[in-house]
């Protein structure tokens, strides 16, 4: 069989009548060839193809090259470029008071794996409903090439020195700490990344995607484990991915045993086609051991690592009303005079 993905939008506009240009942002100021720009393009494709209204989206970022990118897509959306490492806190606050917003946070490996590691771990635990992307290049780009905490042991810096320290695997952390949608991908693999992004946006909870995104200026040389060449030689895809949105008819043929159809909370489907191995993304244990094995054999595993559909997200745990807190008016927010009088009586 062949896996063919359907495109419902043959014309130059999507299902809500917007053109792809309507999902773009200002011109990138990153280096030519930066993996981050490719990811920006894939984000634009995912939002455009899903037909998401830009005003419903809230973009968040921390500090670093990756954190600059939210200005390069969805210029009609509100966005907040915050401080280094603290994007998860900012997003948590905003999405708690308006859980109808579609939250997307873009971070980097310095931002998330070092200065903001605690915040990233905590947002996994809280399961805030949003898409959390780490654009992972193993170095600090804006400060000119220092190693980050995701750099592999033995990876070579541009100046020649080798990294001695154990890398932090953000995906393993995400799985360990209760994130229900965990994937790893490569900036250059739109065929894999776009369905992953779409699936993430259909997930009810935090979805986390670590995207290897080579830094062409500081970490694309021989000996680097985050270079285009290294990824090309070592990328092993866990499965072939497709995505069918809830408003599309399913026209994908699939064979029992080789292809799985996974329904997502909004009625969309991820289509997972078996490649070399039979990988079950619903097993936490398998996901963690697979990641550990890959690390020992210097392989870069990409694809959907882990999926758990029914973990309650933060807004559910907070027992929030359907109407977002930001929409509540004075009658809802300020208890009546009688309540104050009653309270005062209780202190008399």
């Amino acid at each position, binding site marked *: 069989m062949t896996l063919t993905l359907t495109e419902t939008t043959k014309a130059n506009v999507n299902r809500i009548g917007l053109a792809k240009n309507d999902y773009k942002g200002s011109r990138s100021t990153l280096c030519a060839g930066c993996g981050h720009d490719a990811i920006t393009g894939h984000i634009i494709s995912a939002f455009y193809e899903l037909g998401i209204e830009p005003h419903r989206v809230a973009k968040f970022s921390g500090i670093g090259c990756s954190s600059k990118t939210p200005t390069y897509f969805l210029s*009609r959306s509100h966005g907040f470029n915050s401080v280094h490492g603290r994007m998860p*806190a*900012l997003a948590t606050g905003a999405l*708690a008071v308006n859980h109808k917003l579609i939250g997307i946070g873009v971070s980097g490996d310095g931002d998330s794996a070092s200065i903001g590691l*605690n915040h990233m771990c*905590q947002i996994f635990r809280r399961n805030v409903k949003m898409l959390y992307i780490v654009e992972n290049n193993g170095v600090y780009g804006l400060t000119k090439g220092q190693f980050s905490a995701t750099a592999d042991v033995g990876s070579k810096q541009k100046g020649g020195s080798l990294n001695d320290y154990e890398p932090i695997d953000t995906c393993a952390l995400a799985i360990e700490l209760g994130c229900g949608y965990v994937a790893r991908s490569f900036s250059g693999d739109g065929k894999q990344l776009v369905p992953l992004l779409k699936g993430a946006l259909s997930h009810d909870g935090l979805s986390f995607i670590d995207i290897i995104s080579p830094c062409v200026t500081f970490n694309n040389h021989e000996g680097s484990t985050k270079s285009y060449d290294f990824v090309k030689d070592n990328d092993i895809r866990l499965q072939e991915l497709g995505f069918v949105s809830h408003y599309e008819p399913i026209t994908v043929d699939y064979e029992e045993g080789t292809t799985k159809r996974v329904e997502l909370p909004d009625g969309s489907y991820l289509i997972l086609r078996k490649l070399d191995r039979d990988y079950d993304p619903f097993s936490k244990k398998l996901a963690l051991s697979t990641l550990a094995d890959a690390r020992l054999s210097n392989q870069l595993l990409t694809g959907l690592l882990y999926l758990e559909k029914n973990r309650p997200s933060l807004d559910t745990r907070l027992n929030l009303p359907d109407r*977002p807190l930001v929409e509540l008016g*004075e009658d809802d*927010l300020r208890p009546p005079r009688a309540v104050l009088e009653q309270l005062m009586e209780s*202190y008399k």
Partner: protein
Amino acid sequence: MESTLNNFTIQVGTVNGSGSQSANLILLRSIFNMGVPCNGKNLFPSNIAGLPTWFTIRVDERGYACRSRDVDICVAMNENTIDADVAELRPGSVLVYNEALAYKPRREDLVVYACPFTTLAGKVTTDPKLKKLVTNMVYVGVLQELLGLDPVAVEQAVQRQFARKAKAVALNLGALREGAAYAREKLRKKDPFRLETRNLTAGKILIEGNAAAAMGALFGGCTLCAWYPITPSSSLPEAFIEFARKHRHDKDGKAKYAVIQAEDEIASLGMVLGGGWAGARAMTSTSGPGISLMSEFAGLGYYTETPGVVFDIQRAGPSTGLPTRTAQGDILKVAYLSHGDTQHIVLLPASVEECFDFGMAAFDLADRFQTPVFVLSDLDLGLNVWMSDPFKYPEKPLDRGKVLSEEDLNRVGKFERYRDVDGDGVPYRTLPGNPHPLAGWFARGSGHNEAAQYTEKPGDYKRMLDRLAKKFETASQQVPAPILQNGGDTRVGLLAYGTSHWAVVESRDQLSASGIQTDYLRLRALPLNGAVERFLAEHERVYVVEQNQTGQMLSILRIHYPAHTSKLASVLHYDGMPIDAACITEQIVAAEKECAD
């Protein structure tokens, strides 16, 4: 023997975690129930159980509410502190102590009452755990008899303390009656201190500042409380949670608020700014160490112009400092918290009523001026029990500030996030989710122009900073104004803020009695405005009273009013205890004498 009526200080020395707090609050509440003004201060260690703790009740029918330096009646229940507690007593003071302690009274100049508290407690219960708890109630009974506490007032207080749980009420009343009976039969009154019923507390409330501030947040429309536990702030968010659980659920039981216990104070303020940017009223509460961690986000809030409210319940520092002792040591840091040219709106409540009022006003000001607003309380105000008039229901609706809806944008047809349209330095904002094609904008801490676009142009950056300065000039006219109290034609001014107020009130009477008339300006907020400069201009000498070592408010006054620097002198108190009146009076009398010489 002449009586000292309704005017004395009781100090009870106990062991932390021994259940003494119930007995202390019952004693306080009993006096209050008799119509006699009083307040209670808890002096406790940074410890859960075992270390010494003291509770001080100041009874004063004139209404003075600050700490009194001298203790008139010392109740000693703690073997480890009794010697030191007794050593500090003035001649003629009263010592009530537990006979079970290994202690032999040595001072002849005290009125000493020895009581077998432990034995008396044993008469009402044989359970060792309960016995330990009710031992403290026995001293309330002894004091009831010695001071003339109205038994009805006491019983009401016991009922209230144990929420009318019959078993606990009966047990505690039993212990209390044992104490009273013992005192009646065995002790001969030899001291002058007496209570007499008055009608001075009718309609008043007794409450801690943290509960009052949390109530302010509830009525101020706060919907997001993100916080990290820290002494002495934690009881504020905890009170908010309690109030919100009772009064902020919709008919389906859904919560019309969100509380998130954050991973640290950095995240707390981050969540608050996220919530404020999205259009909610968001708060956090912390103390000095948390303020330090919030520094970077405070600057982001200032420069992106994002509303949020931060309660700072100040404690002695630096670092861990004395986490259970009070200070006004964060004012200078908070006024300019962060890097670069930042400044903040800071509210300075002096009373529990102002904790409530400013607790609400902070949210209005944060929305109006689109900036983080800090409410600087302290441990003395936040954790201690103060008498107050009941809080007044707000007459004005919530002020949500300059927010443009989709309809507004349709009408005006243009939007630039950081454009000073009205000439007051305060721009307009839109909230995420606004469907108008012009509504979207990008908040960033880096350089931006009026249209919220990235820029590094010198002119753009300077223009933005100058507009922010103008915004704070506008804010200076709308924050709570300073309160002036004239002492007549005088050349001496006193300037204070926050809880130092109560000591200043009493000190001014003491100064007046010794021939020094003063005017008094109480600051209630930053940024300062013209009223402060006029006060400095009109007086020859201005004493700035504050509870820190470096004269932090005086430093702020120097920055803003350099022409008046030579008139300013500090009156300081910084040992971790709440400031008392005598300390102010002594410093000013000495300084004035030097001037006269």
